[in-house]
């Protein structure tokens, strides 16, 4: 028995579908097994990126059936990743507005140059200090007790007060937190090096 001999208009699967009781050929058995194994991977969430067009067409139909049955869900991690990516892309494309979210990408683009400039300045200052320092005195008293105490905001310190508790909803926004810490530390460096922010 042939299932539907009139339905011959499909370029991806032009042949008629045999009936359930028709004996399969060896080629059809191999093809069916290959499809079943591919479907196993898709159901397990390991769908290969590339597959033959004929297989893809059948996998799409299988996925539509599974989706309508409520069998397909987006994992929480994947959902968060998609939301973050969409927000970042949209924010980068949005025109500047007062109080708008600051584009992290633009800061990132400048960051390597800023870091390189600061590193060079620190290296030059260190070399100059090495050559220009006064000669050591013979019996210099210990200076530990006399060392000036820097204010808290210029010393090494934890970033917790700056960042605060990280809520689950903002857990993916690490770049903004790094930017905030970087800006805070840079202010301290400027104050120490140049006498002001």
């Amino acid at each position, binding site marked *: 028995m042939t*299932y*539907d001999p009139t*339905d011959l208009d*499909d*370029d*991806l*699967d032009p042949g008629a*579908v*045999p009936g*359930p009781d028709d004996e*399969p050929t060896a080629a*059809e*058995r191999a*093809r*069916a097994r290959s*499809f*079943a194994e591919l*479907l*196993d991977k898709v159901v397990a969430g390991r*769908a290969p*990126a590339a597959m033959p067009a004929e297989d*893809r*067409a*059948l*996998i*799409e*139909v*299988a*996925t*539509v*059936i*599974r*989706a*309508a*049955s*409520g*069998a*397909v*869900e*987006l994992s929480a991690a*994947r*959902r*968060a990743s*998609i*939301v973050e*990516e*969409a*927000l970042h*892309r*949209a*924010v980068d*494309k*949005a025109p500047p*507005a*007062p*109080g*708008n*979210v600051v584009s992290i990408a633009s800061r990132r683009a400048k960051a390597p140059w800023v870091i390189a400039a600061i590193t060079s300045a620190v290296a030059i200052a260190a070399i100059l200090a090495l050559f220009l320092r006064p000669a050591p005195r013979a019996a210099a008293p210990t200076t530990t007790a006399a060392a000036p105490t820097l204010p808290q905001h210029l010393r090494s310190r934890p970033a917790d007060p700056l960042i605060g508790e990280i809520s689950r*909803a*903002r857990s993916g926004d690490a770049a903004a937190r790094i930017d905030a810490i970087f800006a805070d530390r840079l202010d301290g460096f400027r104050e120490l090096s140049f006498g002001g922010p």
Partner: protein
Amino acid sequence: MAFEAATASELEEEQRLIERAQRGHLDAMRPILDRYAQPLYATVILPRLGDAATAEDVLRDTMMTAVEKIQRFTWQGKSIYPWLRQIAINKVFDVHRHTKRTRRLADALAHEVPEDSGVEDGADHALIADQERRSHRDRIDATMAEIPERYRLAIQLRLVEELPREDCAARMDVAIGTFDVLLFRAVRAFRKKFGDRS
């Protein structure tokens, strides 16, 4: 999976976030996008595309467009979900227009007018998502009714109940190789009929 209906306080919170986003604080859209990502993906995009990777791309594009065009949204006392859903459906149509490989699915979708939500205007996202899932289910059941019973059973066991192949074969009292052939033919037969459902 049934989605939970929005409470009045959730709608108020949604309105507050949207107004904040419309004042330029686009970050305020994050909780809204997070809340509606799953129903958009599972009931709007994936059932119309059938490809998980493409569906994720469309979901991301939908969200980007929503954030970019949030100024155009007018709060009318109901959830933003129908607006997001309409953006998603338009994106799905764009994909079907640009790719030829999903012709059968595109044919099956041809009767759906993008502007037609198929649900009441005031319905919230949970009701819309459930109605949409029922609508997909009805179309699939109607197609299933047109294929031989053994094919229906193969699809039911493997794709709806998601039983392992070995269990499906045991339930149908056939060897696993025979079940593979039945499922392969069943999906082919379903596909050939699905495009005719419009």
